[in-house]
């Protein structure tokens, strides 16, 4: 009986890992398509245009105020952008003009396999996604 329980837990863990791998694979496929230079990058932050308004504003304000500290190690990608003028008004040209700030013009991160109504953070190792989570100020 004990053996059966352990086997089930192991199976669940395998399933979870395999699901996570699928999502990581999709992130990496998109990053490959975007063809960004991630050689010195440790984090990517994906900020959607629509979703949790407070969370999106919080992530945007955080990087408006602190991006100088992360500009060489962090890439910011705005996805779902419908109106560049509106993005410039909301985010400001100063941040948008930074070298590691991009717009996902093909909306690749709106793909249901990876999209979120919250800003997301990807941990990057060797130019690939090694982990992903929702954006939190405390991670930076």
């Amino acid at each position, binding site marked *: 009986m004990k053996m059966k329980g352990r086997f089930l837990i192991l199976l669940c863990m395998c399933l979870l890992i395999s699901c996570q791998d699928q999502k990581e694979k999709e992130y990496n496929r998109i990053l490959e398509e975007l063809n960004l230079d991630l050689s010195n990058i440790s984090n990517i932050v994906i900020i959607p245009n629509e979703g949790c308004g407070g969370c999106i504003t919080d992530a945007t304000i955080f990087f408006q105020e602190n991006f100088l500290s992360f500009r060489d190690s962090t890439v910011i990608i705005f996805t779902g952008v*419908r109106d560049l003028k*509106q993005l410039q008004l909301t985010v400001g040209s100063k941040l948008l003009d930074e070298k590691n700030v991009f717009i996902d013009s093909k909306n690749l991160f709106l793909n249901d*396999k990876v999209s979120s109504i919250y800003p997301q953070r990807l941990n990057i190792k060797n130019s690939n996604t090694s982990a992903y989570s929702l954006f939190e100020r405390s991670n930076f």
Partner: protein
Amino acid sequence: MKILLRLLFLLLLISCKKDLIVNEVLSETDQKSFKLNSTSTLNINSAEFFINKDDNEIFSFLNTNDNSLVYYLSSSPKKIEFASEGENGVGRFSITTSHHFISQDSILILQTEMGKLFLSNLDGKILKSIDLFDLNDRGSFVNYPTGSTLKPMISYGEILFAGCNFVKFFNDYSNYGTLQKINFKNSQLENIISLPKKYDENFWGTMFKYRISFCLSEKGTLLVSFPIDDEVYEYDLEGKLQASFTCKSEYVENVKPFNANKVYGSGSSPDWGKINSYSLSNSDYTALISHPNKKQYYRIVYIRPSQGDVTTGKKIPDFSVIVFDEKHQIQGEQRFSSSKFDHTLVMATEGGLAIARKDLYDENNEELVFSIFNLNGDL
């Protein structure tokens, strides 16, 4: 001989293509252009054309970027900046804030996030404030009024009509009003018009599938449309059903419900991914608006993308417009592409049906251009 055959084939192809174009019932007859200032964009959630006492049409919209109301007596903008706090404070404008001119110098502002309706003049001075619901006591109200570009508030005498959203999702809404009457003279509120029979069974998806759209008719009645229902209903201003007629889109198939349980999700964890995907991939009747002369009505249908497209992030629908007259005779239906036209800025003006041009805005974001459409027979 071969050349002749090719030429004949080409002519046949062209003639087939022409047949497709002939089916169009609306033609572009004019364009209206409005200059946008540096803080104004196409990100507009509340806009209207208002005809003043001198019979001039005023176009206006709320600008959430600088808490202002922008209006046009000509093609150049004028702006009223609203205070967010203090004696004349109306809070910050957001996607849920809407406005409506009731006269040349009186504007109603519905601040859903504050539960208040403000009456302002053209100087931004608040003349009156009406409490609509208490946000701190969510158990005290079942629905709340809200407006948008496609579902604007309308007024008749001292009454403002605003469509409602329900407070509690996954609920039995049978006895809830979907439309709120707000008397802006004596501050009385009344909820009228419950969901039609089609909603009695089954669960139909996200909240926007339950959202009423309405306009005033020539007879002074309300014409009412619901997203999943082929019927258009006629109610008197007290909310009593007078008649209904079928106004079906060729783009809306017999929609199957998301779930046979009317209160799906109330007892267990709902699958939001599936609910959203279903809602965004099943076409619906989004809006009903009337021409100012009340002789022509436009039922706007969102032609939703396939589930596959929604999955890959392509969620913006094309749309069609069904035109019917004051006798409820359907004149025809025409499809519009969302790559060329903005699917949220479709409005009625004295000149005809105004649809904002997304493609022209993408080329020049300092100008908002509407294409004006009229029935082919009216040319």
